[in-house]
């Protein structure tokens, strides 16, 4: 039997990886991908807990489902924004997006 914590650690690792990516990727798209990883980490947690709570309740899974939907929505918006920026500034590198500072 696989212990609960191992699933959670998998989630934590994904979370950390996503965070690292979000902090270090140069392209906006890269950051978006990393964010997807973070959302997945959360999802893993939810589903894990749902199982190990051992009840009839399906909250965890439903929540995870909703998260997926929202992730999809936010991915759409994020990518549209990336495209808009690319359209106006011809770049996807975040360090070039600093016309507003200080």
């Amino acid at each position, binding site marked *: 039997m696989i212990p609960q914590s191992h699933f959670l650690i998998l989630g934590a690792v994904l979370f950390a990886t996503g965070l690292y990516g979000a902090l270090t990727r140069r392209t906006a798209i890269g950051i978006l991908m990393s964010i997807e990883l973070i959302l997945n980490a959360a999802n893993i947690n939810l589903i894990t807990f749902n199982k190990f709570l051992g009840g009839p309740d399906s909250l965890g899974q439903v929540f995870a489902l909703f998260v997926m939907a929202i992730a999809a929505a936010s991915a759409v918006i994020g990518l549209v924004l990336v495209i808009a920026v690319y359209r106006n500034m011809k770049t996807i590198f*975040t*360090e070039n997006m600093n016309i507003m500072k200080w």
Partner: protein
Amino acid sequence: MVKYAHLIPLFPFAAFAVNILFGRRLKKASALVSIGASVAALAIAVMAYIGNACGGEGSYTIGRWISFNGFSLDFGVTIDPLSCMMLLVVTVVGTLIQIYSIGYMHDDKRYSRFFAYMSLFMGSMLGLLLSDNFVMLYIFWEGVGLCSYLLISFWFERPAAAKAGMKAFITTRIGDTGLLIGILMLFFTAKTLYFKDLAGLGINDATLTVIALLIFCGAAGKSAQFPLHVWLPDAMEGPTPVSALIHAATMVAAGVYLVARTYGLFLSQHTSLTWVAYIGAITALMAATIATCNNDIKRILAYSTISQLGLMMLALGVGGYEGGTFHLMTHAFFKALLFLCAGSVIHAVHTQDIFKMGGLLGKMKATGWTLIIGGLAISGVPPFSGFWSKDEILSEILKGGHPVLFGVAALTSLLTAFYMFRLIFIVLFGKPRSELHAHESPAVMTVPLVILAAFAIFAGFFRPVKFEFLTMGVSIAISLTGIGAAYAFYILNNKLLPASLRSRFAFLYKLVSNKYYVDEIYDALVIRPCMRFADIASGFDSKVVDGAVNLTAYLSVIAGKVQSWFDLYIVDGIVNMTANVTWLCSAILRRFQTGFVQNYILIAFFGLAIMILIKLIGGR
């Protein structure tokens, strides 16, 4: 009759109000307003005097001035021989001098304002004399000081006059603060501010001494006692009638009056009295010596005033209340006379340097003879008034058993006689030293002279004359010596006198070589040491004492500058610094907002990590 005494000051005040408001329209009439007021005051003063003389001893209350719970202060008037006498003197002299001023100021462009100030002064002075408590006295005390300031710098276009006025006010003010502190101390130790309670205060001597000395500070400032006397000679920048009234007869006497008024305070312990005596002595001698070598007619008189006041203080200091106050009165008359004569002379010759004058007796009979009378009076030649008072002072000193002080007094009166007659001889006798078109002054000026001369002669008999033949002889001898010496210098070798004293020495040597031995002896034995001492004294006065005053003024200005610098750069600097520092922080902190989104995220999560860490360490 006494009950109207409180009206006395009101007339002059009214005159002041009228003149200051309507002076423009009144023009010459303003003089009459002031004089009328003075005459009215005089009348009531006479009534008061008589009433008092006939045993109507009455101090009474006018009204409440200030009161809050527990503390209340009523203003009232004191009627006793001293105040009555002074009232008479002030009103008489004041009236005469104002009449005199009609002539003296006739073509001045601020004619009416002059008389306004004069009346203001009269009012304040009379109020001062009448006041029965310290606060009231202090109010009028400052009032007369103000008037002296206004009148000294009356011709304010002359920078010297402006400066002199300021100097006078400040110097006296220094004394006045002493007086104020004294008053405060008195109130909080003795819980009274009335003169009548001063006799038997149940306070220990030490405190009492301090209070007395503080009050004496005020007196010294007003009546130009060493070391606060420096303002008086400069005060001569004012119009001569002013010098006569304020800086000879009345205001400067206020100091002596104050000491006399609070005499009970001094009598109850002797330290302060001794101080008074010695200060008086120093002043008297120093001023007299200076006077002997000065060439400015008014300054000579000013120094003589100082020395005479010193004499009065000395008298009071040795317990000679009678003599002091008596001399106060007589001095008022003859010194006023002398000043007015000087004024008349200056009016005639438009100079104040005695060595530009000479032989005026022929041209100006009235002025000349009255001047001589005044001179005799101040030199203490019987039967002139000065003789009686001075003689009384001397005898009191002797009785008090102060040989040293007696010597000083004697020397002073010798010198007095000398410089007075030096002045008289140079101005009135001999030939004119420069072409002057001198002419007698108009009657409006000479009549007061004559009247004052009369007072100068007979004022001595206001009080019963008492004879101590020893001192009388001594004093007569002294005065005659002085006069004789002066005669010897300035009449005998009159033809040989050059314009200026200094250059005369060389000339004397030439005379010696021309076998005029007498002059040599004179010169060797008397004049040169005398002159040198005088030189040293006046040098001391002008450099050290006066210098000290100026130095303090200068230093305080410097201090002011330093502190304003401090204010600007330190106190304010701190304020501005905080502002700048904030601005700097802002300039630095905003740099975190790099515009690079992943920096934002990094910062955010860094903060988050720290928070979690805190939780992990802090637990729960």
